[in-house]
């Protein structure tokens, strides 16, 4: 089971994910995030994984799928606050992730504050 909560700040949409992200959970998260993207049309989508206790490669598919959508809308995506277990999966997929104690790193490679 996983959930997502949204907040908008300027032209950035924050998606705070919680729970366990597997193939089952990714299906509903995808729909919810895509609805929010269409509704808010943000320049930046920030996916925050601090509340996620488990994620397999379905989460990678979720991120890459959202990245394609955001890019098609002219925006960019940022992944942040992934716990250690998630980082191992993200590392395999070469998805950069902002450190909780540092400025987040965006998919474009630049430092964000």
């Amino acid at each position, binding site marked *: *089971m996983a959930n997502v909560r949204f907040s908008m700040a300027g032209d950035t949409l924050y998606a705070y994910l919680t729970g*366990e992200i*597997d*193939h*089952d959970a*990714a*299906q509903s998260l*995808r729909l919810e995030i895509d609805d929010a993207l269409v509704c808010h049309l943000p320049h930046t989508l920030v996916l925050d994984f601090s509340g996620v206790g*488990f*994620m*397999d*490669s*379905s989460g*990678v*598919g*979720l991120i*890459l*799928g959202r990245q*394609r959508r955001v890019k098609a809308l002219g925006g960019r995506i940022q992944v942040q606050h992934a716990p*250690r*277990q998630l980082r*191992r*999966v993200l590392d*395999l*997929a070469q998805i950069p992730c902002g450190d909780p104690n540092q400025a987040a790193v965006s998919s474009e490679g630049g430092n964000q504050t």
Partner: protein
Amino acid sequence: MKAENSTRIQFDSLSVNEAYARGAVAAFLARYDPTVPQLADIKTAVSEAVTNCIVHAYPDRVGQIVMTIAVYPDRRIRITVADRGIGIPDVAQAMEPLFTTGDPEERSGLGFAVMQSFMDQVKVTSHPARGTRVVMTKQLAAKTSDT
């Protein structure tokens, strides 16, 4: 070497059972005190193997998935995930990172890469129309009280 303990569970290829499968593995291995990272690795690998059965082995129907877990006296664990689905025509190709026959928009193609990276050894045997068997092994670290 003979397993000192083993279990076998069978469940439907429904995506809700992905969480059940990794919960069952965690519950069975709890008494062997795996480290937190090791248990996370095993749960992730199991989740990948079971998801493959649900998404790829039984694309058009609900079939059965059988998972066995065996623990050996040297703290090696062996997990088998087997289905009787459509099979994989080319196992070597299926195991290449980023290869997927699923929806390329939503599947990362990293399932086998995760299993291979998170477990010590992964063996896949498959026969078209007869099913696929994934055997994964991992050596658990010595218990803290043993050292």
